[in-house]
């Protein structure tokens, strides 16, 4: 089915990242496999979110940051000159830590992406809204209130709306930055269910501080510590018999 699509969608090669003079990431090497969930874990401030934001160049928006090394999408360097940020971010979508719906209606939120990327036919937008909301398992709850403000939804619904909003631009890779950290357990469960649905069609990278979540949803796990990617491998292996002592300590709850 996925002929022509490489097995490795994204890769970072000896990636260093600086906030001003502070080095936040050192020599990160990782490959993100197609249509799998890759989880990034590690204690607060270890650089896992920073790394995630390198994958669609969201860090470009922060003044005084610098990237050294290479990040590629399907083999093309995303930090090369002449790369269109808008195109890159269309292909590599992002869901943020806190739900951030726009102050518009649900419908306008979902169709915002398609509209800026050039779609303006009413019926097509309607169709996109419906399919994306269905993919995000929100359609049944909001189909009668598409004109209502998105900010009136509950936190869990808002986060699914944000996922639907990203799906509406048909990204290839989905970056999720602790998408459940602001949600209650029930909403968290629904988002995790959603992720296992979505991985059949999308490549997902998720940052989480919840190790159980990483174990539940991912095929591959990377462990970050002090800006270094200590270890990356199959989730089962990382959680059961990691190679590195530091990973073992973290998994067993000895620190962090």
């Amino acid at each position, binding site marked *: 089915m996925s002929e022509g699509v490489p097995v490795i969608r994204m890769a970072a090669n000896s990636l260093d990242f600086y906030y001003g003079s502070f080095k936040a990431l050192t020599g990160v090497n990782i490959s993100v496999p197609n249509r799998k969930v890759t989880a990034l874990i590690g204690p607060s401030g270890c650089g896992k979110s920073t790394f995630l934001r390198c994958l*669609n160049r*969201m860090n470009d*928006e922060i*003044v005084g940051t610098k990237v050294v090394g290479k990040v590629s999408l399907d083999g093309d360097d995303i930090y090369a000159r002449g790369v*269109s*940020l*808008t*195109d*890159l*971010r*269309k292909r590599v*979508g*992002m869901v*943020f830590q*806190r739900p*951030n*719906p*726009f*102050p*518009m*209606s649900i419908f306008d939120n979902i169709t*915002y*992406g398609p509209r*800026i*990327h*050039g779609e*303006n036919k009413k019926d097509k937008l309607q169709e996109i809204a419906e399919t994306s909301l269905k993919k995000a398992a929100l359609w049944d709850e909001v189909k009668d209130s598409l004109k*209502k*403000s*998105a*900010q*009136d939804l509950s936190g869990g619904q808002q986060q699914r709306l*944000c996922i639907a*909003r*990203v799906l509406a*631009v048909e990204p290839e890779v989905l970056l999720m930055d602790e998408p459940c950290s602001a949600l209650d357990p029930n909403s968290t469960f629904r988002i995790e269910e959603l992720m296992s649905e979505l991985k059949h069609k999308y490549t997902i990278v998720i940052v989480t501080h919840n190790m159980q979540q990483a174990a539940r949803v991912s095929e591959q796990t990377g462990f970050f510590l002090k800006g270094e990617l200590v270890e990356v491998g199959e989730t089962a292996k990382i959680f059961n018999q990691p190679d590195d002592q530091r990973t073992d300590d973290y998994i067993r709850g000895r620190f962090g």
Partner: protein
Amino acid sequence: MPQENSTTEYIPGRPSSLQGKKNAGLGDKVFRNITLLFSLVVVLLIVWIGVQLFKESSITRHLTGISILSSSVWDVQHQQYGALPFIIGTLVTSALALLIAVPMGLGAALFLTEIAPRWISTPVSFIIELIAAVPSVIFGLWGFQVVCPFLQDHVNPWLIAHFGSLPIFAPPATLTNMLAAGLILAIMILPFITSVSREVIKTVPGSQREAALGMGATKWETVRDVVLKGAKSGIVGAVMLALGRAIGETMAVVMVIGNNPHIVKSLLQPGYTMPSLLANEFNEAANEPIQRSALLEIAFILFIITLIINASARLLILWGNRQATGGNSSSEKIAAKLEVVKKFGFPIVIGAVCLYQIVADVSSKGIGGLLGPIELVLVLFGLSRWMTKVCRKDNKLWNRWRAANHNAMYVLFSGFAAIACILLFALVYYVAIQGFRALNPNFFLNDGSKPPDDPTGGMKNGIIGTLMLVGMGSAVGIPIGLMGGIFVAEFGKGKFGAYIRFAADVLNGIPSVVIGMFAYAAFVLPIGHFSAAAGGAALGIMMIPTIMRTTEEMLRMVPTNLREASLGLGATRSRTIISIVLPAARTGIVTGIMLAVARIAGETAPLLFTAFGNQFVSTKVNEPVSSMTMMIYRFATSAYPVWIDLAWAGALVLLIMVLTISIIARLATRNRYALR
């Protein structure tokens, strides 16, 4: 206390070891209530201003009744008082000012918040805020002497040549006219719109910007769809506050509008506004009870208009702040209705005007008339719509078109910010050149009683008068503002504090000309003569709300743990405030006071009705005194070159004074907070 029993139980009547002296906490209560009284002054003042103006204008109200609002005949000889020309003139010039200043101010605000790197945005916002400190009489002088002649030579002929067929640009153009007034007003409210919009734009959460960027929106698209949408009601509030200012502005307008008490259709003709009428006719009206009453009634109307505008603007801003985080569906209903107007109303009106203009152009100039400015704009507009349509079909073209739009908007916004800076430089440049040429030692040594052909005149009386008036104003304004500010910051957490704060903001928005008329009605009329004291009182009233609000803001910035450290040692609340919190906020409070002083030092309008002016040096509190601003106004509008030079010299000295205070004040607290 030696207690044998380890189980201590509560025995009624037994003095607890925790019970202090009987009147413990009394000091705190007294302190709180004293500050409360001071804070109530703002509410009291608003009521008093309304009541006093209403009472003193009863003669004309009985004479003309409600028809003062609808009659367009202002004929003092025949005791006909119709305020319509002034109301219309006020609304037209203010609308014109908003039309120019809102896009520019908003664009400059977006440039400062969203585009410019810090090393540009910091100095540029500093410069723009300095424009706000320039006294309005200097704007008037510059407008009358520099801008009006420039417009008459270069802009008005062009407007007549290309738009003369439209009634609003019908010839002939006069040197002073409504257009010039609108333009000067626009420059004056530009910094205000910029700084308030900037504050509002900053309340839009960064997470929403990230959401749009993260989906591949360009920065301009993010600004247009997310930032402006989220900040909408706050920006509308800012625009309304600016409208309140424009409506109440006196000195700059009275000098450039031409003061013609008839309704005119063309913007190139002279008009009149309510505040400029007050400033202009007051002298002859002071001894005529009926005319005086008519002017007081106009001041009352102005008071009511600005009160309504300011109150609703403040409510909108409060509402907008809440809305940035939580949604509100009733706002969407209003938005939906506005959408209909936007979709059908605007295109029809604009289309009709364009059609009229094109027909007029062609009929007057033949086929060559199709190359006029309106036609070019229409062609550009059509071209951009067509480009959008074509590019949409191809992904690559579409991305290029979006990038081009983004760049175009960035250039536009940067241009707006640049224009704002250039305007300030132009003003300072002219004042400096003309002022230095005219300045000599006589300026400080002699008073202004010299005849118009004697070049040795000076402003000694004005300088001394300004110092006196500012001193008296400070004596009234600083203690009340300071104590009131302490109340709202330290004891005003609840609803009551919010009301006081609201009242202070509303009082702050009442035009100085209204406060001047009030001070005239309340302090001059009963006593029977003009006096420095009445002028000082008017200036003091103007200081109260600004000092109150900055004091409050500064006190709130003192970290809680500092208070807790003191309270935790057993200090009382009042003790903590006086010996810990106030000293910690000292720099900020002093800055606020300095800015308020700079502002009243440049005031003219309220002094015309209270301190009145004096040709000679006077230091008596109960006698009329002059001020630099009043002297600049009277000399600048005279016909004698010697006096006009004197006005320039005065403007230079005043500008140096005011800008120095503002610059020192702002530098002292730079990077800590943004002052308005």
